[in-house]
């Protein structure tokens, strides 16, 4: 008996479409429950415990950590700082990625895959290694400072790392491939004939860009921005290595609270806060996508 003999109709029992859907999504449901829902619930439970000075945890049900996060000006500043810095990073990533994505989209098909490969290739190197690369390039004795000092523009090395600027440079570089890929995925609707039509009707290049190209690629822009924003607000290694202890973000604070101060309940409530910010970003994204349609 060969495989071709077992036609669907001859099968001993047959699942209808309605039955097969839950069966097919079962694996991802299980994976999600074990790797996301269960840990999130544990995190929620941990955030309701009471931290005791010195690192011990008392199991109880209290909103104490949430109250301290909501009332302490440091944490409010931390949330604002995180959202603000990550928005700027998202904007810069978009600005730098858009032309590249557009270029690749319009490139000759035979070059397209090579160019795409070049965009993805940085992802083959760990973010930690790339971040250390930036420490070398932007450091006091690094390439940029050597150029600045050599050209006589400055007489002392400029501090380019261990501050907000360093974190921005590092994260923008690391997140650009994700933005470019999202943009390219959203460029499907961009028909070159529409741009040609606009130009033949007398639109200048900038007008074409604003009135035709950008509106048509807006879904890709929204998707890329969502992805980059979420990745940047949860990024930890790069701010830790390039921030020099001066840049306080939610992810680094969660690390300090859990690993250094052993305050797991507070770390857990900050993690729940990050989850809320993710949720807000998703709401904004879906609103934008709906408005675009």
């Amino acid at each position: 008996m060969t495989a071709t003999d077992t036609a669907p109709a001859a099968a001993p029992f047959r699942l209808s479409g309605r039955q097969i859907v839950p069966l097919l999504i079962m694996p991802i449901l299980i994976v999600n429950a074990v790797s996301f829902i269960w840990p999130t619930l544990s995190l929620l439970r941990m955030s309701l415990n009471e931290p005791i000075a010195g690192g011990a945890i008392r199991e109880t049900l209290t909103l104490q950590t949430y109250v301290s996060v909501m009332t302490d000006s440091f944490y409010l500043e931390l949330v604002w700082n995180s959202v603000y810095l990550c928005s700027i990073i998202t904007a810069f990533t978009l600005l730098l990625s858009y032309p590249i994505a557009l270029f690749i989209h319009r490139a000759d098909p035979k070059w397209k895959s090579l160019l795409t490969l070049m965009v993805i290739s940085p992802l083959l190197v760990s973010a930690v290694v790339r971040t250390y690369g930036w420490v070398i390039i932007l450091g006091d004795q690094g390439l940029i400072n050597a150029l600045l000092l050599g050209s006589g523009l400055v007489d002392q090395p400029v501090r380019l790392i261990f501050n907000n600027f360093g974190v921005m440079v590092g994260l923008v570089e690391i997140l650009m491939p994700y933005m470019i890929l999202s943009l390219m995925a959203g460029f499907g609707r961009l028909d070159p004939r529409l741009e040609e039509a606009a130009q033949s009707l007398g639109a200048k290049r900038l007008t074409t860009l604003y009135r035709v190209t950008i509106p048509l690629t807006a879904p890709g822009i929204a998707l890329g921005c969502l992805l980059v924003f979420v990745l940047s607000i949860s990024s930890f290694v790069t701010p830790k290595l390039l921030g020099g202890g001066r840049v306080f973000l939610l992810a680094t604070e969660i690390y300090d609270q859990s690993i250094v101060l052993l305050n797991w309940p507070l770390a857990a409530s900050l993690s729940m806060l990050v989850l809320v910010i993710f949720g807000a970003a998703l709401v904004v994204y879906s609103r934008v996508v709906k408005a675009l349609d």
Partner: protein
Amino acid sequence: MKTRLLLAGVAGLAMLQSLSAAYAQSGQVTLAAYDGIFQTEYMATVIAGFQEAYPDIEVNYYPMANSAATLGTLRAQKSAPQVDVVIFDVSVAKAATDEGLLAELDRETVTNLNDLYDTAFTEGVNAAAVTFDNLVLLYNTKAIAEAPTSWEALWDPAYDGRVVIPAAPDIQGIAMTIIANQLAGGTDYTDGLDAGVEKMGELAPHVQTWEPTPDPYQPIMNAQADIGIGWNARGQIFSDQSNGSMGVVIPTEGSVFQINAIGTVAGSANEEAAKIFMNYALSPEAQAAFTERMFYAPTNEKAQPAPEALERTAATPERMETMLDINWLEVAQFREALTERWRREVIALSR
């Protein structure tokens, strides 16, 4: 007849006891302690020595990135511990004791506990000091030709932008604040650290990074920075490994001790083997061997490390006089509050 039976019974009991003693000499024990250079050196000295003395007890080394990770592991395994012995920071050991994760100290089996210095024990902690370390000044020998002798060297304007300090909540930053408090004429740290925080604020604009990575030693060895603070043991060993490109100084004003404590895990399946290992780790020979290898000061009064090794620790009589008293459990109580002050009054001045 009755006497013979009794005798046989006694003999049988004695045999059983010797059997159980022999049983205790075999088995395995899992030690959770720091990874990296600590693991390398501890395996080469203490664990190698233990395996020689107790060839039938197998030691598994479970490397941990830091004390908090060890505590996290103990918490996660509370119902079925896989780790039998832990070495971690004393303030973390306090939290572990409070949560019932550590077994009580057993002076009858772990007899070497009776030979430790008084400072090796902390009230309410079911673990005893296994190493004493202390805060030191680190400097790049090419950038700074003459070894500094005082903590004040950190404030020298010549090193503007070339200073690395691991900031609070790291205990190096906390310890530095307590030392700065003393430098600025403050009294005991329990009376408040205003003077120390203010003095650290004066240092802030000169600091290159508050978060030297991967540790404070590498940037100074690689000449990315000129001066900074770190721990003596690691500093000494990295200084040797870097062929002297980094110098290590225990300043004349004294320093503060950091304590790593050893304890056995509550509910461990290998309790006997764990106690035998703990006893060996605290023995004079193991203590001396580890001091000679990694320059931690011994916690056993009877340990006699080579004088040239002892000279590179804070445990010399002259240095002991200058050391500042510090109770890490008291510090743990205000560590979070001090961290907040650091962020507002110290790090804010270095942006």
